[in-house]
């Protein structure tokens, strides 16, 4: 309901396409491998349907590209150029992450100092609320792909985007499974 129809249709087409490619690429019979292939293909479909406008899309694809196992599948789905871009994004993110870790540890140290200094002062309600909010935001950053370096407003925008797309992804996957189930059932009869 929330995502525009064009996006849904786009995503569905890409999903089917990538599923087809996945079926051709990996002849593996293992359930887990197939499940991984399905997940990779659906994530890539969602990310490419979303387009360049959202940083979480790039981060999601980069996350998959970083694992060596998915290389063949990704190459097939996105083409060589797309895979190169994803691999570059995956490599580039590592340095950013190390820098982020350094700055975040600095911030934690300083906040711990501040907290100790304020330990004497009454833990005011606002302070407690703020730390809780910060904790939640940290969790959110871990959940949403590519939102590691975002603060405040942009973080919320990213989550908004991501939630909408996750919803469509779940709905599309549900449609797919139901249809295939019914078709399989009908073929059995």
């Amino acid at each position, binding site marked *: *309901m929330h995502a*525009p129809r064009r996006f849904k249709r786009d995503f569905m087409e890409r999903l*089917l396409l990538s599923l087809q490619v996945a*079926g051709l690429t990996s002849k593996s019979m293992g359930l887990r491998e197939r499940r991984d292939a399905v997940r990779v293909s659906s994530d890539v479909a969602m990310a490419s349907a979303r387009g360049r*406008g959202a940083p979480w899309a790039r981060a999601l694809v980069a996350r998959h590209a970083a694992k060596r196992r998915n290389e063949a599948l990704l190459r097939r789905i996105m083409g060589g150029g797309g895979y190169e871009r994803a691999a570059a994004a995956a490599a580039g993110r590592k340095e950013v992450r190390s820098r982020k870790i350094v700055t975040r540890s600095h911030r934690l140290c300083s906040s711990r100092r501040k907290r100790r200094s304020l330990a004497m002062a009454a833990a005011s309600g606002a302070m407690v609320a703020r730390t809780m909010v910060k904790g939640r935001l940290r969790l959110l950053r871990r959940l949403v792909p590519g939102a590691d370096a975002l603060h405040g407003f942009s973080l919320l925008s990213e989550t908004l985007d991501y939630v909408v797309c996750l919803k469509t992804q779940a709905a599309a996957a*549900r449609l797919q499974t139901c249809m295939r189930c019914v078709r399989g*059932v009908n073929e059995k009869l």
Partner: protein
Amino acid sequence: MRHPSSPLEVPGAGGEIQALVPVASASGSAARSSSGGGRSGGSFTALLGLPTSQAMELLLPAAAPAFPADPDLVDRAARFSAFASPSPSSPSPTPPPPPSSSAAAAKRKADPANRVSKSKAAKKGKTAAASGEDKDGGGDGDDEKPAYVHVRARRGQATDSHSLAERARREKINARMELLKELVPGCSKVSGTVLVLDEIINHVQSLQRQVEYLSMRLAAVNPRVDFGGLDNFLTTEVTWPDMGINGARHLMQLQQHFWHGDLAHPLQPPSQWEKRADTHPPVFSNSSSSLFGYDLASSGAQPQTGKLKTEL
């Protein structure tokens, strides 16, 4: 620079997308030339008051060929209007405005929504820096984002630039939180940032888990069949002649729910599936809405918050 402090009114049958464009005086021509409908106050709540069907109809099919080069804004704009109350008030579909103005208006709607929400609350005060005003009606091709944000100070509050900027930022963030509250089910009755964030995190986690579970099922459903065998059937909304009657009906319902997003009708219980098929876990529920999310929300978020606390 008066803008109408009109109460929040849902635009009537003649309400078109011009009604959504924030009605500052400069855009008067475009707004007043709209045939019917009240001039909605241009705040966020006015945007949310537009019925879904109208907004979707106006935004999407009409503007589909002429979308501007910034899909992000337009997506966001579509989502803004899609968050309206689901009751369609106007049965007669209005003729969609020309795509250029609708596209431009869609872009402008997402952009100066903040500006307008602030200016609506103004009683007196001085405006901030001079603005790049892009509120004139009519479709100018692509608007650049204005350099300054037009802010009005509220009555009795400090008017120096720092607090104004802070207030602008806070309003933006609050607007986003409102949107997220609309999106995540069961958040509208919760107040306070922390709990809302809790709910959002729960929702995201449950959605991710759903996707994982569904992809596992999808992989399990096709043991031998290659994944792409059902292309033609799945993208069209035509009935398939070779399906069983019940199956076709279920699937048409499901597909309609997907495309139209109407979660109001519960499905019939898929008992016949469970009898015949063997790959159905008993978890598969009747509703086409989320498998886990709504169940968790109804049964309370207790296990989730427990898990959250350990993670924290």
